């Protein structure tokens, strides 16, 4: 199922984009699965996602840990640790 990915903060520059539509295989069911699948796509993703602990996620606008499900989601955001203060 197509999934809209949104990137924020430094991740935008590292990936060279704000958003993209992807269609991950069916074994990708958690945020962690998604990160692993993206990192395997090419060197830019591998480098940008090299420190998974520094990548936070939101599924449908709700903060979600790496163990959280993306099943059925239409929008997943990935971003560096939040906080601008």
């Amino acid at each position, binding site marked *: 199922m197509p999934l809209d990915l*949104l990137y*924020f*903060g*430094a991740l*935008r*520059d590292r990936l060279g984009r704000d958003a993209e539509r992807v269609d991950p295989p069916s074994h990708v069911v958690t945020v962690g699965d998604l990160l692993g699948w993206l990192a395997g796509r090419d060197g830019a993703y591998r480098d940008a996602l090299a420190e998974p602990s520094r990548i936070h996620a*939101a599924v449908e*606008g*709700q*903060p979600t840990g790496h163990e959280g499900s993306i099943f059925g989601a239409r929008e997943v*955001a990935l*971003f*560096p640790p*939040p*906080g*601008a*203060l």
Partner: protein
Amino acid sequence: MIDIRIQATDFDPGHQIGRLEQLVAGSVASVTVAAVASDEVTEIHVDHYPALARNVLAAIGAEAEARFGLAGIILIHRHGPLLPGERIAFAAAAAAETGVAFEACGYLIDALRDRAPFWLRETLGDGSVRWR
């Protein structure tokens, strides 16, 4: 009352405190935060994800209300372009007890710092940019 504002424009801390003072005979604790940057920074851009920001700030407000039993909470976070030194965020709590208002305000500002989904991009005098 929990008032959450995610806005590009500046805000007036005194006006916000006045709104909370009308809710309760008691105390209002507030923190106003300016965007601090080193000298070579000429502009700051606050990146944000509106849907997530609304959800996270609403959750922070609801948690603080449940935990402290407050008369009122105001959370403001700006997004978009800022000059160094401009206000970027505001947290305030009103309660009958001074200690309760103060502790709640600390909870709010810590939560904004640790969890609010905003990211800073700084533009330097030489035109280069960096994320913080």
